């Protein structure tokens, strides 16, 4: 124990005693979180979790898009006394919904794509300033690092809420929200790519008497470009996932349909939407993985 106290004086606990101390502190923190929640009576699974779970699984297991083929062609809505109120062709209704879903998915993809590109461009100068081996003036590099840390700390959804208030509802707010949050990620990844650059190879090219532009295009560019592209694909893919929920706050895309389906308890429609989201992400992931492998 005294060893641990002594090690604390140096800032970071070291050694076996230090590790045991950290572990004990973590266990105490977990126990505190758990027992305060239990004491407040907030840690429960509700009244009948099993029935609800089975019901939800039942709803989800029949996604609404099946109605296009198997839905009732003549669904009659009647009032209590048997008067015919409305007749609906489930197949047509579902086809219209799917068309709307497709448009929303396309908007989501547009938001992710344009937002990622904007973030990549905005982050480039900041990443260059923060890369330690480029030795930018310290004031500038600190400022750039601060900007990147702040934008990374604020969630896309929070940026979206603020931006909807500024530029109004629609995809523009979504694009800007994605761009602002991803900027922090891009800047950090750029700086890391540049920091792993083999400076000795760059110096060797410079030693042949090449001009700065020749050095950049022959030594720096070929080394960092594949990493930049790989980073871009990764963040882009991440943003496709992220932009699906931006519609929840009115920034356009699939999120609007998600919030609609959840509000109306249309679980079968939610299942359809989720299938589209999964297909979108999996397809993009497969393509970007191929490209990244080709780049290595």
């Amino acid at each position, binding site marked *: 124990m005294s060893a641990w106290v002594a090690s604390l004086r140096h800032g970071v606990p070291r050694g076996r005693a230090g590790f045991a101390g950290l572990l004990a502190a973590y266990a105490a923190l977990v126990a505190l979180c758990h027992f305060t929640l239990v004491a407040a009576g907030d840690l429960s699974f509700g009244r009948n979790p099993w029935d609800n779970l089975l019901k939800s699984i039942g709803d989800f297991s029949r996604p609404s898009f099946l109605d296009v083929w198997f839905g009732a062609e003549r669904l009659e809505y009647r009032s209590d006394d048997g008067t015919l109120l409305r007749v609906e062709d489930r197949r047509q209704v579902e086809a219209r919904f799917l068309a709307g879903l497709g448009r929303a998915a396309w908007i989501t993809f547009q938001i992710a794509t344009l937002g990622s590109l904007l973030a990549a461009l905005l982050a480039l100068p900041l990443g260059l300033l923060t890369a330690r081996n480029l030795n930018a003036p310290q004031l500038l590099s600190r400022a750039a690092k601060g900007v990147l840390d702040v934008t990374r700390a604020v969630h896309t959804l929070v940026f979206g809420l603020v931006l909807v208030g500024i530029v109004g509802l629609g995809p523009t707010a979504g694009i800007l929200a994605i761009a602002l949050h991803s900027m922090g990620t891009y800047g950090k990844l750029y700086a890391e790519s540049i920091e792993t650059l*083999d400076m*000795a*190879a760059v*110096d*060797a*090219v*410079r*030693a*042949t*008497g*090449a*001009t700065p*532009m*020749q050095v950049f*295009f*022959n*030594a720096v560019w*070929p*080394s960092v470009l*594949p990493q930049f592209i790989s980073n871009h694909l990764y963040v882009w893919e991440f943003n496709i996932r992220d932009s699906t929920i931006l519609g929840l706050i009115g920034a356009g895309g699939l999120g609007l349909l998600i919030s609609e389906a959840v509000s109306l308890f249309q679980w079968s429609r939610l299942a359809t939407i989720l299938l589209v989201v999964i297909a979108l992400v999996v397809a993009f992931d497969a393509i970007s993985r191929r490209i990244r492998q080709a780049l290595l």
Partner: protein
Amino acid sequence: MKVTGPHPTPVTELIRLEHVRVEAGARRLLEVSELGVAAGERVAIVGPNGAGKSTLLRLLSGMATASQGRIHVLGRELGPQAAALSRAQWRALRSEVGVVMQGLHLVPRLSARDNVLIGALARLRGRAAWPSWLRLYPDALQVEADAALAALGLADRADTRADRLSGGERQKVSLARLRLQRARLVLADEPTSALDPSAKTQVCAALRAATAAPGQALVTVLHDLDLLPALATRVLGMAQGRIQWDLPLHAVDGDLLDALYDRPPNPVAAAVSSRQSIDRSAVAARSNHPPHCTRSAV
């Protein structure tokens, strides 16, 4: 497409140092009262670790600066009193000084051929340099690069990425790059370290070929003393930051080298080292013929 070679300014003495001191803090790294290297010379620098060999080489390539003294490299003054060179002047000087470093500093993601062509970048001037930004080179240079690779036995590796080459192949690529640079003065820091014997032979031959023209000179830091006959006509023995002796190759013998490396005067070691030292007659015989990178007489 204008491809220009090195300036044909006739300078018989390529390097001249006078009263040069290099210091790091309070520590003296190098002190040279006088040193000249003429065109056509091949100079080897030998000595124990920390003797100042690499510092001398870095000084000549402009990577280290002296605290006092006069330094002339290829007719340009680099000393602390000299007016600072402009960026263009530095580039012109660098293009004429070929550097082969200990590490294998190739651009990892470029092919062997593209790495070789980097040597020719400084020969492309003005508008001719623009396509080189996209790594597009005139056909004449491509042919030259392939020939330089073929001369080192790497014809079939031209399209392989540098990071997929073996250590020996990479060192050969850096020598092919040197060949395309057409440098007047070549500075090599242990060019054969970590190479197998046959690769050593090829690398030595390439270094000699790259500095065979009458106006050229080669300065090599060597730890592999067996290579002295192949890479040197003159040997500088360095220790403790000073040049201890400066002798033509035929005057260098095992005793001098032993004293330089401060080997213990133990009778067994002395008997072994005298047998392993460079045989004067073998060296004298080689001075009439083009030396080869073979192990000297044992």
